[in-house]
């Protein structure tokens, strides 16, 4: 099967095959991406860049979660993770994982919970 350069059917698996150049999952740092990981652009797009990469850089000028990015771009998590891995490796975006309730070796983070609580109480 040869993947068309411009798929006539922009949905479906062929599209993802083209977008990811056939890669099925991110390697390295992006393999730990969480749906709530915030992505922030660290560089402008350059001419000739893949359209989806450009889109990601444009949408992440302000921090945006992987889940929001996937919803806006209409891309499944696994496909988006491949694209984000490219940008992470090139240093064009920064990824910030969600803060867990228990910081590594630091025990329960009461200050964080207090911050969340006061935010919710203001709703």
């Amino acid at each position, binding site marked *: *099967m040869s993947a068309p350069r411009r798929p006539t059917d922009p949905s479906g698996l062929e599209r993802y*095959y083209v977008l990811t150049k056939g890669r*099925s999952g991110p390697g390295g*740092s992006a393999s730990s991406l*969480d749906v709530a990981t915030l992505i922030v652009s660290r560089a402008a797009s350059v001419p000739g860049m893949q359209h989806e990469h450009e889109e990601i850089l444009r949408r992440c000028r302000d921090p945006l979660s992987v889940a929001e990015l996937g919803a806006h771009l209409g891309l499944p*998590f696994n496909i988006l993770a491949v694209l984000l891995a490219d940008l992470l490796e090139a240093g064009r975006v920064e*990824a910030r994982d*969600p803060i867990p309730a228990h910081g590594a070796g630091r*025990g329960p983070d009461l200050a964080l919970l207090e911050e969340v609580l006061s935010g919710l109480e203001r709703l």
Partner: protein
Amino acid sequence: MDLKGFDHPGGQAADGGTRSVKVMIAGGFGTGKTTMVRSVSDIKPLTTEETLTQASADVDHLIGVADKTETTVSLDFGKISINDSLMLYLFGTPGQERFWFLWNGLFKGALGAVVLVDTRRLASSFRAIEEMERLEVPFVIALNVFPDSKEHPIEEIRDALDIPEHIPVVVCDARDRASSRDVLVTLIRHLKDRSAVALESR
């Protein structure tokens, strides 16, 4: 998957260093998870999807195999701005627990979870409660009151669901923003209590 290896030193960046926390909304099919996400979110709730083939759940074979049936599993989510530099993301988990693996350890790093229960169909949330216990995700139980729900004393339901005394069980209306907010407040207070106990017992 090693989350620690992904930490960026000096993550507090020029944009104010906005960070995120996440809370999961779990529960059986049709217990009101999406409704709760919708009622309490600051943004129009969104859906992120994952596609997998029927024939194989192995992600290595996900792409480039066009002759297999695709299944789309979706995850509804919303966002609450806690303050200028902290976002709370709420994820309504897919009813089919067997798909939770699709999102890189969906519960990993979550502050905790709300398990929604429809009192007319208690059994539909058994699996979600078991999963929270297995994954060691701290949770509270929220009984979502549907118009034709009968009055159920909370303690009776606690017994039926076999929920220990220290885990809060509250009644809510998932359609109501204030009521859903109160459930989240109950969860965070519960997490604080757990932390306080953990600190004392050191």
